């Protein structure tokens, strides 16, 4: 009797495991039919081995349930899965990078207010805050995008809409590999811009302590830049980093040289040059104690060093020329690639 009950229990468990995966309306009927078929496949007094053999021959309950299901079941249908993954690939890096910057700035500012704040503590709190905000933001973005696509898919199913397309929907074929922009490179560029932009702003605000020490003939100088100069750097770094992020985002979105991407490169490049010229034109770049030390100790042979930040052609002007030439080259390359891509 016990044995019969155990064997019957095995069959019931199998039927349950199949029907629990089906719509409520189908469970009873399918269960009844499946139970009947299983008993028909067994001899009058089956033993444990025979029952197991029949259940194994029917296969995994999940697989059998899939056969019984009136329609395939998935969260995001194959028809829109490509669009879903493409959107995730675009949104998640941007959201993660932006929130990492915000989190790092906020965490560092909070850490700087603490009584025993030092460089290690500021950096570690900034990094941990940035990472946790980036992770949380990325998860939120993943959730909302997935939910949006799942709802749109169900709505489309309920409306009974079928996929329609026309020949005008067909995309243009990229001319060649040269007109394509590497996604990996663009994402790395985005991340590095966010990282160094954040570090730059924190340094200019004095939140990120920077240890500088120069010792010449018993005189030690501990500050590199003048405080006023650092304050004027903050908006410049913020704007140029922001435009850099936009440039990277455009590259990630379009993945090829288009007019908006080219515009992003030109605007970002020009902003970098303009920012550099603005900062170079500041009356005082280096700290007074450093300038005084250089004036008094280096002497006439190396007098050009003391002219840093003043009028006349000097080392600073050389740096500006190099940056301008590099920027012009980068912008010209972007324009060339865009024109070539548009003509193809």
């Amino acid at each position, binding site marked *: 009797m016990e044995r019969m009950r155990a064997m019957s229990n095995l069959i019931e468990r199998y039927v349950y495991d199949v029907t629990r995966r089906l719509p409520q309306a189908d469970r009873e009927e399918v269960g009844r*039919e*499946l139970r*009947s078929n299983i008993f028909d496949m067994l001899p009058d007094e089956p033993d444990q081995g025979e029952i197991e053999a029949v259940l194994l*021959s029917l*296969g995994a309950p999940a697989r059998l349930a899939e056969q019984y299901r*009136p329609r395939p079941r998935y969260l995001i249908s194959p028809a829109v899965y490509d669009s879903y993954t493409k959107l995730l690939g675009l949104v998640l890096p941007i959201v993660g990078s932006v929130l990492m910057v915000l989190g790092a700035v906020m965490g560092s500012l909070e850490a700087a207010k603490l009584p025993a704040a030092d460089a290690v503590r500021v950096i570690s709190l900034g990094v941990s805050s940035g990472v946790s905000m980036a992770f949380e933001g990325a998860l939120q973005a993943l959730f909302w995008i997935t939910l949006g696509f799942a709802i749109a898919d169900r709505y489309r199913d309920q409306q009974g809409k079928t996929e329609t397309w026309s020949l005008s929907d067909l995309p243009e074929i990229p001319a060649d590999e040269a007109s394509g922009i590497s996604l990996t490179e663009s994402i790395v560029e985005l991340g590095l811009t966010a990282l160094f932009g954040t570090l730059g702003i924190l340094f200019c605000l004095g939140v990120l302590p920077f240890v500088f020490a120069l010792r010449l003939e018993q005189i030690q100088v501990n500050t590199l830049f003048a405080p006023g100069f650092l304050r004027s750097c903050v908006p410049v770094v913020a704007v140029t980093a922001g435009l850099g992020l936009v440039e990277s985002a455009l590259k990630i979105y379009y993945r090829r040289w288009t007019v908006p991407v080219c515009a992003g490169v030109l605007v970002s490049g020009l902003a970098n040059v303009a920012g550099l010229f603005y900062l170079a034109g500041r009356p005082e770049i280096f700290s007074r104690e450093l300038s005084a030390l250089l004036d008094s100790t280096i002497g006439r042979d190396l007098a050009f060093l003391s002219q840093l930040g003043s009028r006349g052609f000097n080392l600073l002007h050389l740096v500006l020329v190099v940056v301008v030439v590099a920027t012009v080259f980068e912008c010209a390359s972007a324009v060339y690639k865009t024109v070539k891509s548009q003509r193809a």
Partner: protein
Amino acid sequence: MNENELIQGLITELRRGSLTLAVLGSLRRPHYGYALLQTLQELGIAIEGNTLYPLMRRLEGQGLLESSWDTAESRPRKYYRINETGERVFDALTLEWKRMQESFEAFVGKDAGNE
């Protein structure tokens, strides 16, 4: 995937459409699930229960079969049989099957002639 697995997979694909024809044709006489499984296997049609039972339910859902429970015997059984719509569909599928068979024989014959 080795060659044997590939062949088995393609054979399964080849059989899939013909099974519907076999089931509709067999259900001109009422059968319950396991009885139809035995009938088809005796005719040399390789089919398993986990394929046949859901197929019968699906064809009923498509309006090609009718079903009824027989509770007269010791164990209740669900009997299926083809209905009028199913008959018309079966005739259309049979016609298409014959056309495909003729095309395929011509194809195989053409290839054999070229060897």
